[in-house]
């Protein structure tokens, strides 16, 4: 696809931007399988391969399970590997996601968030990536096309960092972000190449002079030690995410942290929300601020590992927090983001009141009025100090 730039900006859909980032990264191997709404990433990228714009080896596998299996094989063989999927595709990869992280392979996956069946639904929610939240992958969420594009470059550096060596998942909202055209700034090809550098694995399967065994069976004598190492690596990756986010900011003018706060400093009430719905919520924040309400927003970018301490510090002065999940963990006690935020706040002496609201499943619109309503509810909680309904569905 030809990209035309005007004043350093270019109008791209989320999928086209991810494909373009992949073109600039030019990975060694890309095993992929089509699924709505991420298909266009691989279609565009296949075009780059066919036109010789990249020299990546594309493997058009027969399932997502094989896509991730081939990613694992190629990564263990020392290649820089990328793929993309959505929904059922990610669900089918589930078994292999754990193996990718357990083997400490720096694979990059773009997940274009889509609801899980049943009922079958092709539209946005976060149940796919939330289902993979304990798989040992670092998860970066993206509000906009620009952020998704920027995240992909950073993901490579984070995954391949010697202190990390873990796979990274970049998440963006299906259709809302993947199919919406946004004006974004592209990184210069040479600078992109320089930023990601070359992947030099410490060990790999193609080094036949130094044979190694990957994926040995580990019994109770040592399994837990492997998991302990992995757990420490993902916990420690937070610092690397920050470091790379800063470096990215220095080079390209857009710095990224663990989360974004919006008018939160003096806020009495706040909404915590992921991805594109944060944009809608910001409009509500601005409108309510105009009316004199002290409202704010916190949008996690890094969900795995979860920045507990930093989020606690950011929310400690808020009186009431509404955590909005575009996924339900079916625990009967709110969504997955809610569980983490509520847990993060537990250690505070004076804890904010907190509620869980599940919104927008299967692509149901989340509108400014929905955010305004939640802020209204939070304001009543602030006044009365009482939570009447801890968890409920909105946008019904």
């Amino acid at each position, binding site marked *: 696809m030809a990209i035309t730039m005007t004043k350093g900006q270019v109008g791209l859909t989320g999928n086209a931007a991810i494909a373009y980032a992949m073109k600039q990264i030019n990975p*060694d*191997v890309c*095993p992929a399988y089509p699924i709505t709404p991420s298909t266009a990433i691989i279609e565009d990228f296949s075009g780059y391969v066919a036109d010789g714009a990249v*020299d*990546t*080896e594309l*493997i*058009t*596998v*027969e*399932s997502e*399970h*094989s*896509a991730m*299996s*081939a*990613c*694992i*094989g*190629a*990564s*263990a*063989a*020392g*290649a820089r*590997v990328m793929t993309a999927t959505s929904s059922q595709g990610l669900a089918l990869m589930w*078994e*292999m996601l754990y*193996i990718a992280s357990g*083997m400490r392979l720096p694979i990059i996956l773009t997940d274009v968030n889509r609801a899980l069946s049943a009922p079958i639904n092709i539209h946005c929610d976060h149940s796919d990536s939330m289902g993979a939240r304990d798989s040992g992958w670092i998860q970066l969420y993206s509000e906009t096309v620009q952020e998704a594009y920027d995240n992909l470059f950073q993901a490579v550096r984070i995954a391949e960092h010697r202190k990390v060596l873990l796979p990274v998942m970049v998440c963006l909202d299906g259709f809302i972000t993947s199919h919406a055209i946004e004006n974004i700034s592209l990184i210069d090809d040479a600078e992109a190449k320089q930023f990601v550098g070359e992947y030099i694995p410490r060990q*790999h*399967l*193609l*080094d*036949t002079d130094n*044979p*190694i*065994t*990957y*994926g*040995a*069976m*580990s*019994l109770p004598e*040592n399994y837990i030690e492997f998991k302990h190492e992995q757990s420490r690596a993902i916990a420690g990756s937070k610092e690397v995410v920050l470091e790379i986010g800063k470096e990215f900011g220095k080079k390209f003018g857009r710095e990224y942290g663990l989360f974004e706060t919006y008018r939160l400093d003096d806020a009495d009430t706040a909404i915590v929300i992921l991805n594109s719905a944060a944009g809608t919520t910001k409009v509500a924040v601005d409108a309510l601020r105009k009316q004199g309400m002290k409202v704010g927003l916190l949008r996690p970018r890094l969900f795995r590992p979860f920045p507990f301490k930093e989020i606690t510090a950011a929310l400690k002065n808020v009186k009431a927090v509404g955590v909005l999940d575009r996924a339900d963990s079916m625990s009967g006690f709110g969504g997955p983001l809610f569980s983490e935020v509520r847990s993060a706040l537990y250690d505070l002496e004076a804890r904010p009141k907190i509620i869980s609201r599940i919104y927008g499943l299967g692509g149901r619109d989340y509108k400014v009025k929905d955010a305004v309503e939640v802020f209204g509810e939070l304001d009543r909680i602030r006044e009365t100090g009482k939570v009447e309904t801890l968890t409920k569905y909105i946008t019904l």
Partner: protein
Amino acid sequence: MATLKELSKQDELLSGGHRLCAGCGIPPIVRLVLRAANGPVVATTATGCLEVGTTIYPYTAWRIPWIHSAFENAAATISGIETAYRALKKRGRIPQDKNIKFIAFGGDGGTYDIGLQALSGALERGHNFLYVCYDNGAYMNTGIQRSSATPYFSNTTTSPAGKVIPGKQEWRKDLTRIVVAHNVPYAAQASPHNWADLSKKAEKALNTEGPTFLNVMSPCPLGWYTKPEDSIKWAKLSVDTCYWPLYEVENGILKVTYRPREKKPLVDWLKPQGRFKHLLTPENKPLLDKFQERVDFEWQRLLDLDGKRI
């Protein structure tokens, strides 16, 4: 092809000391196939006896680069490795004169059943690799459950010879024919008792460009209820009774590579195996006859195709 003397002098790529059972057919198969590579080789193995028995951390019996990732994906894993090899060679990160062979090993459960989709995909895409299925006729690693490769009427823990149902009721899946239907350049059936035939086929497969396949009979004392020291004998008899014909399909031409001088009655092979004990009773004689008829039918079909383009 190397002589037996030459083979015995080659480096052993699968070391001794692994934990596969005495009398297991897998190690001789793997050792012969690896020797046939005669150069750098990278392998993957599906979950199963071979994987569990050779790599209990911190030990490994593999003297070559090796990976196990899951049960159903050996063919997909090797696809990734082989593709990485081509990608990195193209980019000059692997010397142009270095030639690595790629092999995926899987049992019948990991190949006929759960791994069939990944195998089909890898064959269709045309990766340059050899897939070796060691077929011992059941899920032996998990305790002898029936697979689609399990012989007719075989007694397994999930197709027990009971009072009403006398063992597995279905004829086995003919995987070699399914693989051949992918129009791969080379596919063959072999057995470890005939080391020369197996070595020759492995060598041929490994020196053929594109996806190749070996389906190898693998005796299992545990699941067959046989004596470890007799394994090779029963492997031979599976061939001499024509239950497991040795043949190859090279560029579409089928060739029977071994015709027993005297085709032995099937019962000679079934008799020593505890898994077929129930077939030897007078009331089950019709089942035995049915089994023999089917073996004869399949053998004749193969003979009819011998030398033909299929």
